């Protein structure tokens, strides 16, 4: 064996290693970047889904902004109150936590109740479908494609059985990205503990509304009159609930003639935390046929 060659190999490789190692060691000193340890801590509690709902490029940028005081501790909309509380603990400020909000799709007109007027075969996107007026008879309803689901960073938006989209409240972080994605503006943030929800945004009133969808809001204003706290208002032909005033008495849902207003029933052990159900109709009122 040629020992001479072996030694040459060992020495040359070892000297390479030493040289490069020394270079790296010096560089790590020379080019050391001071990072506030709190940035790392804040980044640890952020969701790290980089959804961008805070308006900053990614969670890392958000963490830096919070530590440098350029953003409030409640910077992370997606993380909700738990993350805000955790961030506040790291930064060392007190914060009062609000109620978490989740996205809700304000349409319940599935294929069973809202007939199709055409078959849509274009680009598989609500935005494109909306240009054609959509395949549904109702021009305000959920198109049931996947624009909102595509932008959702936590996969909280799923298909309903009826060709609609549904938000899984336990997954939704309330980042609000889907609100922009919906060409029909059907998605809104609703407090997670909201008892009632008006699930229609049809601007048609009366017969015209029920003509295209059996469960459409007909703008009858019964809910407005029934609400003891003036929390519900009918505008543009559909009911809107002000959750700051709503105390969850369920009166509006009881009187709704088309079952547009639904009740959120919390169910322990339910994979989605609960379900929307149609309330029992109040007796004595005039039944709609």
């Amino acid at each position, binding site marked *: 064996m040629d020992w001479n060659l072996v030694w*040459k*190999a060992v020495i*040359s490789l070892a000297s*390479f290693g030493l040289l*490069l190692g020394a270079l*790296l060691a010096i560089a790590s000193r020379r080019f050391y970047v001071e990072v506030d340890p709190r940035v790392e801590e804040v980044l640890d509690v952020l969701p790290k889904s980089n959804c961008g709902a805070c308006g900053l*490029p990614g969670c890392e940028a958000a963490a830096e902004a919070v530590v440098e005081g350029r953003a409030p501790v409640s910077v992370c909309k997606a993380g909700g109150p738990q993350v805000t509380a955790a961030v506040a603990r790291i930064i060392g400020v007190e914060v009062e936590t609000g109620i978490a909000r989740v996205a809700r799709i304000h349409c319940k007109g599935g294929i069973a109740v809202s007939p199709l007027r055409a078959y849509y075969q274009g680009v598989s996107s609500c935005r494109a479908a909306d240009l054609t007026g959509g395949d549904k008879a109702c021009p305000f309803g959920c198109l049931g494609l996947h624009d909102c689901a595509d932008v959702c960073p936590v996969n909280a938006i799923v298909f309903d059985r009826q060709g609609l989209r549904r938000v899984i409240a336990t997954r939704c972080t309330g980042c609000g990205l889907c609100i922009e994605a919906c060409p029909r503006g059907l998605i809104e943030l609703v407090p997670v503990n909201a008892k009632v929800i008006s699930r229609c945004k049809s601007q048609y009133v009366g017969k015209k509304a029920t003509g295209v969808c059996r469960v459409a809001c007909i703008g009858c204003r019964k809910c407005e009159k029934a609400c003891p706290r003036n929390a519900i208002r009918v505008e543009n032909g559909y009911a809107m609930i002000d959750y700051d005033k709503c105390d969850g008495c369920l009166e509006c849902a009881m009187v709704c003639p088309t079952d547009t207003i639904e009740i959120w029933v919390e169910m322990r052990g339910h994979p989605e935390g609960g379900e929307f159900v149609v309330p029992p109709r109040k007796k004595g009122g005039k039944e709609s046929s």
Partner: protein
Amino acid sequence: MNEAWRYFLVFFGAALVSNILLIRFIGLCPFFGVSDSLETSLGMSISVIFVMTMASSVSWIAWNLVLEPLGVGEFLYIPAFILIIASLVQFVEMVIKKTSPPLYRAMGIYLPLITTNCAVFAAATESVKPGFFTKLNIAYHYGFLEAVVYSVGIAVGFSLVLIFFAAIRERLKDAPIPKFFRGVPIAFITAALFSLAFMGFAGMFNL
């Protein structure tokens, strides 16, 4: 053959005729990994051009000044070059992080990926052993400048194909593709057709 013409041939030979992705099939992992969107492939391309040029020139110096004179190059070039590439990438990452945070944010995530990229190693090896991976064993020795031009050529060829492919894949997302071909399968087929097209460069000019 005059000087400028030779550099031109080295450059385009590396970039097109023996394109690293489509003709030699080296570095296919990032080719499919980051060609999902134009943005990431641009970031990756810039990082690759940068790292490949540096790695090849330093490897060339190590080979010609140390390994070859000692007669150990033949069996030591793999560990030596990998050592050089890995430390260089680390070094560059640190320097960029300190001197230019915006550039670090744009390139930062791709740099560690490139550490173990075979295309970078291939460029470094071929700049000292021309034609090594094509089994051509060209009896030619690149000068330093030629080696640099050669590795820039490889990197530009890599970037060109990566960016083209990313653009194609972005359009494939909206194309009406049969269900079974959606996603990676159609990308493979596209890459194969792409590769066939690049075969047209073969034999156009040689060095």
